[in-house]
């Protein structure tokens, strides 16, 4: 739909632009500034060009945290999407239980993220956390502050608990949009449960699942709070994902140059993914 031209609208938008400029554009420019300079003891700067970018891109440390990040994102996507769809399929579509289920599903999403991290930190403590005690009670040695495997296990479990609900709610909305006639026709055609899922439900949910996948992809790539509160990036570097690493460099070591460069690289990666998001969505629409 075309919008009509209205010059007065610019006056309305001006205050917002000013605030945005102050909060987003200027800091971003500052980061860009830092990324191309070398700093010594605070206030002395030398222009270094692309030195930091090259350093970061070639650094093993960056590669390592990027790899960890990719494994993390890949794993949670592989679990959350199918699990979310399965739960959505199991949820009732009519009747009094619908609202109850929807509220239950929404609850994990309402908790502040650092609280999520804190909850799971305590929950998984081997000494007195319910989960920690239970697993250790089964005979499996479990301590997420010391074992890499346990740390990853807990991290992924926490993310799945926290974010699967989003996929469930999106998938459920997609399912509700399918008219009854399709199910009736499939029944009459003699389609099995699996055929109904494969030929009716999944294709009709495509749009919605695309959103779910890309949202989770972007969010998980930028994840910081929950893993930080849960493990602090440890044990050692085991769960140091991209954002955590970035903060360690910038604030911990106060190496502004590399940190700034890393931020920008990171920012561009997320931007590229958003662009993919946008293209895939609109290409789907054009075809539909």
């Amino acid at each position, binding site marked *: 739909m075309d919008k009509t031209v209205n010059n007065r609208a610019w006056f309305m938008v001006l205050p917002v632009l000013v605030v945005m400029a102050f909060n987003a554009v200027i800091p971003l420019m500052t980061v860009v500034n830092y990324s191309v300079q070398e700093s010594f003891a605070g206030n002395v700067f030398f222009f270094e060009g692309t030195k930091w970018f090259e350093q970061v891109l070639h650094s093993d440390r960056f590669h390592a945290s990027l790899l960890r990040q990719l494994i993390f994102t890949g794993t949670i996507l592989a679990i959350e999407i199918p699990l979310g769809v399965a739960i959505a399929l199991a949820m009732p579509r009519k009747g009094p239980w619908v609202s109850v289920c929807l509220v239950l599903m929404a609850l994990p999403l309402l908790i502040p993220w650092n609280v999520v991290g804190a909850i799971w930190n305590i929950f998984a403590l081997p000494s007195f956390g319910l989960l920690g005690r239970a697993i250790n009670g089964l005979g499996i040695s479990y301590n997420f502050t010391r074992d890499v495997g346990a740390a990853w296990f807990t991290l992924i479990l926490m993310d799945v608990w926290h974010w699967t609900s989003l996929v469930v709610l999106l998938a459920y909305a997609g399912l509700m949009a399918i008219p009854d*006639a399709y199910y*009736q*026709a499939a*029944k*009459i*055609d*003699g*389609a099995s449960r699996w*055929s109904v899922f494969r030929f009716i439900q999944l294709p*009709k949910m495509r749009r919605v699942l695309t959103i779910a996948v890309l949202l989770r992809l972007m969010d998980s790539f930028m994840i910081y709070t929950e893993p930080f509160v849960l493990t602090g990036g440890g044990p050692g570097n085991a769960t140091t994902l991209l954002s955590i690493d970035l903060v360690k460099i910038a604030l911990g070591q106060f190496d502004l140059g590399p940190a700034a460069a890393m931020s920008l690289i990171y920012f561009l990666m997320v931007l590229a993914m958003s662009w993919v998001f946008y293209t895939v969505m609109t290409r789907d629409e054009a075809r539909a």
Partner: protein
Amino acid sequence: MARIDLVNLAHSYGTRPRADGDYALKTIDLSFKAGGAYALLGPSGCGKTTLLNLMSGLLTPTQGSILFDGVDVTERTSEERNIAQVFQFPVVYDTMTVYDNLAFPLRNRGVSGEALDSRVRKIADMLGLTASLNQPARRLTADAKQKISLGRGLVRPSVSAMLFDEPLTVIDPQLKWQLRSQLKQLHRQVATTMIYVTHDQTEALTFADTVIVMFDGRIVQIGTPEELFERPNHTFVGYFIGSPGMNVLPAAVEGAVAVVAGHSIPLDRQYEKSSAKTEIGIRPEFVHLAESGQGVPVRIKRIDDVGRYKLARVTLGTLPLNVMVGEDAKLSGDTGSVQFDPRRLHVYRDGELVDGRV
């Protein structure tokens, strides 16, 4: 094809129906001959879709039983009853080609190879879909998609009945003609029991050999299109069938005369006097407009030119009356006379047709 019998069938959507009003379909007994073409005709909410869904197995009746060829199928699923249904909105599997769509019901039943291919191609040919067999189904127009839905029903070799739920709703008027006559031809070729639900009388009358008129969950009349047109046995049927419907005028009837708004109109049968609410009904096709003085005087309020014919909206006293006039007729002025064809005048008491003595 199967003979379908409905015995003492009724249905309520509520959990504990008590009064009549709770029932969407009130108790009916009905039989459909094997291979017949039937239409369930009635306004929204009359229960026709409920009846169709009970027959197809998508709903389980609150009361009564359904028999296919004498076998009680009330508890059986749609698949077990072996019926095919075409819905109002074309239902196609978007991810498949036209060919795969048509083959789907057969594949689900274990048919494959040469048998599958020849059957699919035969049905595609019958429906004029051969050219689009390899195209993705979602790209086709609405009427082509509806043909695919139809095809999926036809492709199964021994379907007990084909049920249509207002299938032409989304089709363009121009294409409706083609699809309608194709459905009728299909019935001749395939000879399956076909039951067609609609609120459009043209669709019902052109398709079916037997029309079942329904209203408020009950069956009002069953008959051939001709019978329903010539002898509506309820004023509702007279009103519902025909465009415009039958004229219904309150009258006092005794002997062979009906008195309407003070004017006497001759009838061709003798009727007893009665204190029930009496009305006479006559279709606009059988009321003739004549020069002033030669019949019952009326005021001409408006003349609608409908192309094929003209419709004169007149008033007899305060009573509205529709008169159908030929397309070439020249009408002028605002007064005229009408004559009623006595053979086509029906007498209704309390809405029900009464037969007079000759």
